[in-house]
């Protein structure tokens, strides 16, 4: 991903671009999770194939390799694996916490909402009648409410990460090839983890691992190998052309009258654009976005230190906490919108307030970590390792 950043193994100089884009991705995920939010129109999924999830997973792979790769090199496979698994456990606990909030919302709606128009839709509340099964399936990560698919994906990616990282540190290209092979096999053989009550995981971890491993590969020296390619104007031109193409296609989704301009052979080939299995078009769209971002935003770009971008960067530096907060705020926001019967002004206000709360919380966490680090000098080293390039 980086063009000018020094090799990560030898430097702890953090690439603020990662934090910036992850912070922005967290905001976008929050906005996208409030259904029918008027502010949704500004999020990137309306302008191309990929969305904030791609950015989040790629950067998580990048920072994961950055942080745990160093641990694995310096302290060995066992300790680094233990740390990765501890992280997976933290995310699991966070996910279950969010699930509890979700259950509370559902239970409230079940108790208060009634409308003969929605007799069919209300069947979704039926699972409250058998909480034994539902909660158990949720603990197994098989039952996942709407918009609560990203953290389970992240957990599985981390569980698979220790052996992957082991190979990445020794034979990075082999590891990346293996990851691409697994991705290809998913498309060939169509396998995924089962979900409850039916179907499969919304984000197939066996497909999405490609983005995570690619991020890790970039962090462990791949970015330097790509630097030459990314400086090329031809690559830039191709990337921009692809982004324009994707934008034109997404326009036809919003304005039906434009659909006739998409030739039948193209839509036959293109649709459906599969989010579950990380469609190649989505992956390519993310690559194009990244290529353009890197070209115009070098890691030593002075703007990264400007106070204007600081809020997004701080959010990106505490991604797990801010992600969970974002999901919670999206729930709360939906709830308020529903209770007061909506309105674009309210949606905009809630979106803005949510982002402000995310920033305030991220600043609070930064402040607390700094204080804690200062008062307990023995923990300083650990803290630095955690913060290098952001949290994993």
């Amino acid at each position, binding site marked *: 991903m980086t063009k000018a950043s020094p090799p990560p193994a030898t430097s702890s100089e953090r690439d603020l671009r990662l934090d910036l884009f992850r912070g922005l991705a967290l905001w976008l995920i929050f906005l996208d999770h409030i*259904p029918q939010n008027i502010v949704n129109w500004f999020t990137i999924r309306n302008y191309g194939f990929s969305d904030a999830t791609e950015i989040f997973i790629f950067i998580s792979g990048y920072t994961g390799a950055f942080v745990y790769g160093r641990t694995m090199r310096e302290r060995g496979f066992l300790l680094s694996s233990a740390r990765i698994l501890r992280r997976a456990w933290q995310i699991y606990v966070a996910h279950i916490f969010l699930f509890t909030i979700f259950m509370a919302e559902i239970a409230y709606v079940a108790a208060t909402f009634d*409308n*003969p128009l929605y007799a069919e*839709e209300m069947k979704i509340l039926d699972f409250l009648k058998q909480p034994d099964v539902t909660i158990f399936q949720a603990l197994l990560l098989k039952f996942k409410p709407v918009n609560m698919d990203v953290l389970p994906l992240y957990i599985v990616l981390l569980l698979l990460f220790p052996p992957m990282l082991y190979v990445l540190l020794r034979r990075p290209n082999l590891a990346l090839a293996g990851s691409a092979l697994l991705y290809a096999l998913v498309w060939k053989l169509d396998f995924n983890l089962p979900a409850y009550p039916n179907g499969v995981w919304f984000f197939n971890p066996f497909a999405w691992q490609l983005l995570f491993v690619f991020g890790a590969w970039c962090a462990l020296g791949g970015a330097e190998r790509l630097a030459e390619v990314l400086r090329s104007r031809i690559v830039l031109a191709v990337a921009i052309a692809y982004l324009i193409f994707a934008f034109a296609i997404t326009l036809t989704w919003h304005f039906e009258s434009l659909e006739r301009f998409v030739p039948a052979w193209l*839509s036959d080939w293109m*649709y459906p654009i599969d*989010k579950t299995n990380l469609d190649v078009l989505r992956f390519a769209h993310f690559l194009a976005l990244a290529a353009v971002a890197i070209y115009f935003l070098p890691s030593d770009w002075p703007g990264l230190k400007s106070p204007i971008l600081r809020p997004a960067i701080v959010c990106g530096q505490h991604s797990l906490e801010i992600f969970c907060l974002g999901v919670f705020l999206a729930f709360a926001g939906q709830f308020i919108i529903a209770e007061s019967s*909506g309105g674009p002004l309210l949606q905009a206000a809630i979106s803005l307030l949510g982002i402000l709360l995310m920033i305030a919380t991220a600043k609070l966490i930064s402040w607390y970590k700094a204080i804690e680090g200062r008062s307990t000098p023995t923990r300083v080293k650990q803290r630095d390792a955690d913060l290098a390039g952001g949290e994993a």
Partner: protein
Amino acid sequence: MTLIVPVLTMIALLIGAAAAEPTPATPDCDVAESLLSSEIDLARVTNEIKDRHRLDISVVGSGSSTLPGPDGARFAYPARLEAVLRERLPGNEIKVTAHVQLRQTTAEMASGMQAMLAEDKPALVIWQAGTVDALRGIELDDFRASLETGIEAVGAGSADAIVMNMQYSPRTESMLGVEAYADVMHWAAQQRGVVLFDRLAIMRSWSDSGTFDLYAATKDYAMARRVHECIGRALASQIINAAHLDAGKMQTTR
């Protein structure tokens, strides 16, 4: 202060331009033209009306194609559609037969399509689908395949098809993810060249404009019936548009 006058004038002009469109007779559930226009023709419907002065429509759907209660079907959109079409296409014999079964998945409806076609011999099939599949978490690939099977069966029975997506249900939106299924329906309809009745977008526009408060908790049937009445009207408009039956008043809601 100096800016206010030109800005207000602009707004007034914009509102005026919008109001200059033909006003429907029932302004309480107006639908934007773009939601009812179609690139696809209902050729069979056109011919039936022209040649035989009749139109047989079959509605296949699940719970949201009816209303609860013993007289629910009487106030639900299939019955309302029949009434509105009779009113708007005088001199033609209109018959709407509803095949509504609660909790039916798209796969189940698709497998029953052939038998239904053989029995009803409709010129037009309105197929409401998607909600039960979202409820049960049916895989999107399977959902798409079932849709295509059903649409093909309708085509093989030489009937026109309109695919209808889900209701807009803001109160259950965070629990029941219908968006991905709606996307599949959009693509499938486009690929197979059949008309999509975008109930989701239409009801959402009613919610946004304040026509209906779809967040409201109520045991009262009055609003549910009005919504179905309006869906019936909008559906009638889309049929008339796509079959070019009302050249003078094309694409109005009524």
